[in-house]
């Protein structure tokens, strides 16, 4: 799998190159700023990009903007954004560029190498991956008579994992319940929120995210 890395800190860039190399990825280009990322994407058409939000010159959200520019140049380009802070607002801007093949994770998550590599693979395959901290922010937003309040604690756990982009199989494993039990929770959640049922894991994730961001 071919990767482009955009990260202005040399130390972290070296670390990522080594980590991804060890995990069977091929790093085809490294960029240190936004234009460098767009250029590398144009030239290499990678399977996935790993992009730091903060890059020169202003160290605000250049990485996010460059990733959005790269995605409008190469529609559907899989991108994983890494950030020292995750905020729901940035997640929203990223998802608006097309919710498939995007990931948004706290930089710390890189330390759990197995999970991080798994997230990259899922995004490269068109999946959506959101950091649990962003999901917590999404779930905390309330409206009047919110149907979210009618969910049981277990259903809240399930909807949280779905919003992170997890498949039913993964949810069953992490909650230590059967696949059938997860399917039942998902049916109940969709019923309570008035969402149309869907068989595909990914389409369910997108429906849940659209609901939470509404």
């Amino acid at each position: 799998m071919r990767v482009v890395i955009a990260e202005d800190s040399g130390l972290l860039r070296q670390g990522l190159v080594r980590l991804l190399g060890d995990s069977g990825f091929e790093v085809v280009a490294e960029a240190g700023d936004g234009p460098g990322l767009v250029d590398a994407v144009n030239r290499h058409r990678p399977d996935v990009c790993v992009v730091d939000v903060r890059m020169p010159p202003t160290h605000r959200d250049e990485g996010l903007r460059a990733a959005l520019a790269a995605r409008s140049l190469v529609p559907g380009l899989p991108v994983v954004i890494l950030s020292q802070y995750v905020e729901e607002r940035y997640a929203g801007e990223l998802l608006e560029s097309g919710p498939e093949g995007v990931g948004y994770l706290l930089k710390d998550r890189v330390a759990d190498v197995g999970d991080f590599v798994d997230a990259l693979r899922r995004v490269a395959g068109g999946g959506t991956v959101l950091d649990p901290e962003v999901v917590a922010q999404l779930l905390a937003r309330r409206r009047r008579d919110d149907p979210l309040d009618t969910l049981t604690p277990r259903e809240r756990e399930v909807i949280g994992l779905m919003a992170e982009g997890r498949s039913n199989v993964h949810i069953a494993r992490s909650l230590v319940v059967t696949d059938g039990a997860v399917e039942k929770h998902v049916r109940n959640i969709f019923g309570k929120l008035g969402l149309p049922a869907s068989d595909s894991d990914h389409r369910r994730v997108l429906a849940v995210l659209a609901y939470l961001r509404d």
Partner: protein
Amino acid sequence: MLAESRSRMVDASIDERRRIERDLHDGAQQRLVALAMDLGMARERMESDPDSARELVDEAHEEAKRALAELRDLVRGIHPAVLTDRGLDAAVSALAGRSQAPVTVSCDVPGRLPEAIESTAYFVVAEGLTNVAKHSRARHAYVNLRLSDAVLCVEIADDGVGGADPAGGSGLRGLGDRVAAVDGSLVLERTAAGRTVLRAEIPCAS
């Protein structure tokens, strides 16, 4: 009166720097020392006792992640990046998203305001929500920001039992000084309906 509040403001900023120094020293710095020790011991035992070396590396890994989380919280408390990047609405929504009690936010502030005003308004909301969490046993909080006639009005209301007192609490007095430093005013009141409302009014000359 104003001079008094300005001088309290200077004291508050010295206190704040002490607090940051203490948080760094007690938190991330100690964790990094523990982590370096774990790694050092792991290196010694790599050959003779690989199992315990692996345990030490696991511990060091956990310490590193905790240090990162602490640093992130500390830095966010000094100045949140999302406030600079996206303004009040986004930053206040993010605060609400991290609050224990559910929070409903309404923000009617078009465009961006001067940095000092945005930052003051943000910390009013942050302190207001902290008080709601600490004192009021509220089930729900409401944050309202609106700009009208060149005055930014920031309100944090809750349906809890009250208990915050601007004269008694150093947090609220510090906040009052902060608001006064941008020529604003801060009041805490209890409505007839039993709600506690913290309100800041900050003039925004444009």
